[in-house]
């Protein structure tokens, strides 16, 4: 029941995102025909051919409904610029981006878990907290540039750009993962601190549990709740970060496509990227809500 309701609201969010993006692009200056012509030849004949080919003579409402109808069936239209179906354009670029985002997410989460659990002593904790604050407040592209100059230019350990082999993935993934690890470590540590102050921890210790077991079996699970709620934020940060990082490291991916589409007013591609982002967001947030239900039985009641 609760799952169905979540999926229902997710669909509404998707529709709102698609519509909002459609309206925003409709309100943007310049006509669709201009965008499609781009730098090509511009004669009245070509113009009328374009209007006919893309059915641009229909009222805006009909075009909107037609767009929604086709989008619901998985047809995202054709790119004005590349003259190819948007699905193919995005599909080719999706995997490099997903790969980068996934590796960065796993890396960031793992790093945060390890740091939050291991830096419990006052001294290590102070060092770690400071490092986290620095990472959180540094713009990702700066982290990327620093990593590039040290590990690629000076030490020559990793390729400077491109997407060939696992080595090329290391620096961009680390760049994306560090700020995520910074935020998550702070949230996890705070959660662990709070859990360790609870009476049930005294009970657990009074059972003869080792400190490590108290952390792993009791405190960490409590600390996961606020961290899991950040899953939606994590997705947003990754998608936003990827656009910049792909440019810094010269990697193919959604970031490059989005940048190109926005600058050349390639409406179908921009719309598809917006809808895809909203989709990722909805999926992640739904997953986060369901994960909270799994972690905390007290939430399952209503």
């Amino acid at each position, binding site marked *: 029941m609760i799952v169905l309701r979540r999926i229902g609201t997710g669909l509404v969010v998707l529709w709102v995102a698609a519509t909002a993006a459609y309206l925003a692009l409709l309100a943007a200056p310049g006509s669709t025909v201009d965008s499609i012509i781009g730098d090509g030849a511009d004669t009245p004949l070509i113009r009328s051919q374009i209007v006919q080919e893309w059915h641009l003579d229909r009222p805006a409402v009909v075009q909107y409904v037609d767009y929604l109808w086709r989008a619901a069936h998985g047809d995202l239209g054709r790119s004005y610029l590349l003259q190819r179906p948007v699905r193919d354009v995005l599909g080719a670029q999706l995997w490099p981006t997903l790969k980068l985002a996934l590796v960065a997410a796993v890396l960031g989460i793992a790093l945060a878990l390890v740091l939050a659990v291991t830096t419990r002593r006052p001294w290590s904790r102070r060092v770690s907290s400071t490092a986290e604050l620095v990472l959180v407040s540094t713009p990702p592209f700066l982290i990327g540039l620093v990593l590039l100059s040290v590990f690629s230019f000076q030490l020559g350990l990793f390729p400077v750009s491109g997407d060939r082999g696992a080595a090329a993935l290391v620096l961009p993934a680390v760049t994306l993962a560090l700020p995520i690890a910074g935020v998550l470590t702070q949230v996890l540590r705070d959660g662990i601190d709070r859990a360790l102050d*609870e*009476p*049930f921890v*005294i*009970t*657990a*210790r*009074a*059972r*003869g*549990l*080792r400190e490590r*077991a108290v952390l792993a*079996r*009791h405190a960490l*699970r*409590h600390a996961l709740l606020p961290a899991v709620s950040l899953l939606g934020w994590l997705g947003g940060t990754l998608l936003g970060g990827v656009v910049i990082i792909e440019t810094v490291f010269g990697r193919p991916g959604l970031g490059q496509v989005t940048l190109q589409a926005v600058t050349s007013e390639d409406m179908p591609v921009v719309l598809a990227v917006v809808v895809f982002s909203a989709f990722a967001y909805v999926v992640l947030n739904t997953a986060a809500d369901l994960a909270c239900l799994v*972690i*905390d*039985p*007290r939430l399952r009641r209503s």
Partner: protein
Amino acid sequence: MIAIRDLHVTFPHRRHTVEAVRGIDLDIEPGECVAIVGESGSGKSVTARTLVGLAGPGAVVRSAKFEVDGRDARAFGPEEWRRVRGGFAGLVLQDALVSLDPLRTVGAEIGEVLRVHGHRGDRDLRVRDLLATVHVPEPERRARQHPHQLSGGLRQRALIASAIAAGPPLLIADEPTTALDVTVQAQILALLGERRAAGETLLLISHDLAVVARLADRVLVMRDGRIVESGGTASLLSAPSHPYTQELVRAVPSAATRGRRLSEAGVVAAPEPSGDVVLEARGLTKRYGRHTVVDDVDVRVGRGEIVGLVGESGSGKTTVAQLLFGLVAPTAGTVTFEGEAWTGQPERRRRARRRHLQLISQDPLSSFDPRWTVRKIVAEALPRGGAVEPLLERVGLGAELLDRNPRQLSGGQRQRVAIARALAPRPSLIICDEPVSALDVSVQAQVLDLLADIRATDGTAMLFISHDLGVVHHLADRVLVMHDGAVVESGPVDDVFHHPRHDYTRELLAAVPTLEGEIR
């Protein structure tokens, strides 16, 4: 089993140290029940936790002798302490809702002890046996449930089951019944008594003298980290020799303390009832959906009268207070206040009359703006130009507190500020919702004396809501007993409490341990 001489526990606090325990001796023999009583901050809980090596972060423990199970615990490393915890001594804390991990099933919590202490054999089976031992019905189903799905009594039983799972010879119970309703408290006390009768050793930590009197063989009275008096339970509580113990015993409100002061010698005058009615509610009913929270309740409070409203948690006492106060609109029924209609009036019309109806809650801290000073808090309730100092003086607070924030006050001082604020607009009725439940017994005595004085001098009527029958019997003129949203019995307090007619009232009265009843 335990032999301790000259135990000191200190905690670092900013630049200096806080001495929580200052040189106590403690011996526990096999098979006896020793109790440590004291008020908050006396060091009783720290003492109990030090016995299992859990004094707290940064605690420094010193002693001339510290023997646990015949071995010198001063030389214990972490592994040895680990075996003591759960293996030699089980610990039961206050409220199982927070003392058991809320994210794990009861069975997992009990099973954890078995796993840590190397239990061989079927762990699930043993968990079910343990739950059955502490009289949890349907142990199989309960083991799969989480603490929030269990009632307060069952939770506390599960907590006890987890403490005794590895068969420790010593059970340490730190305020084991404090958060429980009286009937549930009686069940848990019976369970602990059952274990004691079976020859188990028990260390009981409590602020409640009556609870201690019911269980303990020997009592140690702690104050400010020291033991001021110790001895056999009956002799110590019936004839205390130390002034502090005398003060504690005298401060416990009950039927026998009616009309006298609790915090000092002396009597309180009770005015003759005038017959005027301040507040009257008829047929008060509140339903949420199909759930009836308050069911056809009649309340009448005369001028200068103190009416007690008793009942267990969930009986609807607080909802009645909200209905009378006009915070919640009743589903049915009417309230008349000072002879005029109170329910069904638009708030705009009621606002001017609200000054005459005041509220004192259990936790005054959350009813104060934390950034306001005492002066501002009280002055807000005063008519323009009214002076704050005389009011504070009346509730026994000095002018030096005027510029403090609520957080800088002790619990008793906060409750006095709350009373001063309630008195400021010269109310004809004060609704007191568990006003002394969070206070230590000696502070509770002072606040109860203050409330009795206010009634005697100002003729202020009070509706006194409490779960503590002793407090109500001490203070109130008449009492209403609530159960499942309905008033099951009402009348003059002596009639109801000495000659209860309803079964529930009888059950309630039988469940309450009283000091007189236990040591007789």
